[in-house]
């Protein structure tokens, strides 16, 4: 896809501007590029689906959409070996600690995609007594993919957005990924007390 075809270009540009302001060494910058190239092109998902979106994710892997083209097909079942968790489906109160634990078990660098209305905001079940109104209440989310369920094309779009986001990250000298978690807890103090 061409650069202009993406939405949210301002967001990426903002990230790049921030990085430029911080300034980096040329060699370190090149290393960063290499590492980010590796990371962004080798996103291994954790198989995690709770409802309908998971079936669409299976379609994503199947022959017509074939996520293997991008190198996403190495779906790992063990969170230790996966790179990102794509939350597909509703997260309810009973599942919330499990999801949180899965997130903790992922090895850094780790990313979260909230896929589908339920994961983004609770979707059609928002008013229920035991549904989490969006996974961003318990996890720092990198990309949101709306839809109920999102079409496989939308999922690709979301994944490509994640790739773009990773490409402007900094490995050396920049913000540590673990600070992301700290920031998240600063915003949600009630969650930290529970862990």
């Amino acid at each position, binding site marked *: 896809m061409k650069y202009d075809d993406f939405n949210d270009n301002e967001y990426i540009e903002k990230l790049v501007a921030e990085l430029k302001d911080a300034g980096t060494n040329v060699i370190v910058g090149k290393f960063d590029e290499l590492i980010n190239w590796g990371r962004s092109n080798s996103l291994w998902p954790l*198989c*995690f*689906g*709770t*409802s*309908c979106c*998971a*079936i*669409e994710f*299976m*379609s994503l892997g*199947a*022959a*017509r959409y074939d996520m293997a083209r991008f190198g996403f097909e190495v779906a790992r*079942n063990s*969170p230790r070996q996966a790179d990102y968790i794509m939350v597909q*489906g*509703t997260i*309810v*109160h*009973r*599942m*919330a*600690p*499990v999801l*949180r*634990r*899965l997130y903790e078990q992922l090895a850094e660098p780790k990313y979260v995609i909230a896929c589908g209305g339920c994961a983004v905001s609770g979707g*059609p*079940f928002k*008013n*229920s*007594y*035991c*549904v*989490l109104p969006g996974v961003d*209440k*318990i996890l720092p989310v990198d990309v949101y993919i709306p839809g*109920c*369920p999102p*079409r496989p094309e939308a999922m690709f779009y979301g994944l490509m957005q994640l790739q773009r986001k990773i490409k402007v990250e900094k490995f050396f000298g920049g913000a540590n990924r673990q600070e992301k978690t700290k920031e998240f807890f600063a915003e949600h103090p*009630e*969650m930290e007390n*529970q*862990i």
Partner: protein
Amino acid sequence: MTNIQDKIGKICPSAQFEEGDILLVIVPDTDWHSLALALRDDADLHFDYLSALIGMDWKDSMGCIYYLNNTATQEMISVKVITTDRENPMLHSVSDIWKVAIFQEREVFDMYGIKFINHPDMRRMFLRNDWVGYPLRKDYDANPELNPIRLTDEENEDDTFSIVEDEKGNIKEVKSKVFGDEEYIVNIGPQHPSTHGVMRFRTSVDGETVKKVDVVSGYIHRGIEKMCESMSYPQTLMFPDRMDYMSAHQNRHCLCMCIEKALGIEVPRRAQVIRVMMDELMRISSHLLSYGCTTMDMGATTAFFYGFREREKVLDIFDKTCGARMSLHYNVIGGVCADLHPDFAKDVKELCKILPSRLKEYHKLYTGNVIAQNRMKKVGVLSHEDAVNYAITGPSGRASGFSCDCRKKHPYSIYNELDFEEVIDNEAHGDSFTRYLLRLKEIEQSVKILEQLVDNIPEGEICAKVPKLIKLPAGHWYQQVEASRGTFGVYIESIGEKTPFRMHFQSPCFNLVGVMDLCCRNHMIADLITIGATLDFVIPDIDR
């Protein structure tokens, strides 16, 4: 009907009767257990199949409604049992008579707090064990501070209790253990690739042999039934699509029919034909997915891709007419919401043409494989008796020889005019292989139905005239359809308002997961996966 009424009157003089399209028997709790036993064992009554168990809260009293089915004559009755004690409600359990009630009663306990006397295992079913309150009660306090989002793990529930009544009628609570201390318990799920979602099986193993499976459910319990109570009828239509998303059309068809029955709406012929065709397309897509997942769970990843290849063709048809690949929202009260796409007939014909040859390919690729046969044959055998007792319907039930196809037994829509066979294994093998094969055979029958209808779609309206504001009269209705995985039922109770007083979805998968323990015992861990895959449950349908 009068015959049944007389008989029940003789067995239980205290019973009251209420006529309706299904006879309603109201019995006091003290006589219920003995009546239930008679209902099942009496040669004439022979109500051996409990098709629905619905917890109820009528504000002044609470209770349960049971829908019973005679598998020989297909007669149905319903039974209502009430308790007025709101503080410590108790009813007698029928889980020893119909095993399906073991899980169903746990659900009622979870949602209403009704304890069942003599039930072996009274734990919560869907909610966390530290949950405060019983959500489906009318006086439930939904204050989020009572039940905040907890990120602490809940304790493994090894302790359970049951309320036991001795011969003198004294009631006491007995504590017991689910697993002994020396058992080696492997936790399969909730995050596991082969549980098809977030299901958790706590499995006690001896080496590789499974000794006991404890089903822990509720990791996707979304409280659909509670939400329905605050929504208008057209709004509730979105939920069945999201429960068993692989039977979206059938489930929604069921809810629409139930509301239409209550309103007395006649659905136009064209809409009925379209609905039936969509149902069968959905069934094909569901069984193809099931084929793919079964093969993948057993390690043959390539077969999965073949199943999905044809499924995409079905989804294309949906995409053109309904505008979505999943969560289709196509049926509405009175008919369907959009007319067929011009390509519909052509696409369906093409699908019908390629499917038989593709099915042959599947058999070549997988069914005939020696390893596949060894993995599935005689694994997870479910006898005919158990299938009826545990109310296992759909392809899994029919593999055990339980003739339970709603399209034949309680014909709805235009199914009685169609020429198709109920695919059933007459020798009642009931093993994984039969279940697997039966699904592929059902695809052939669905193709047969589609072929009959595709050239005979009548012209006319696609939706009947429906009042703007839909208010159901006071009363209650129950409707069943044959979804992809078994008999799906909807129960609506209305008190004449624009929102339902109670809406219950009787999902087939909930019963399917109830036999996991029975089927898996003394098999290997690998067999547990096979059995789970061939029973083919969809988790959001279990938890609702």
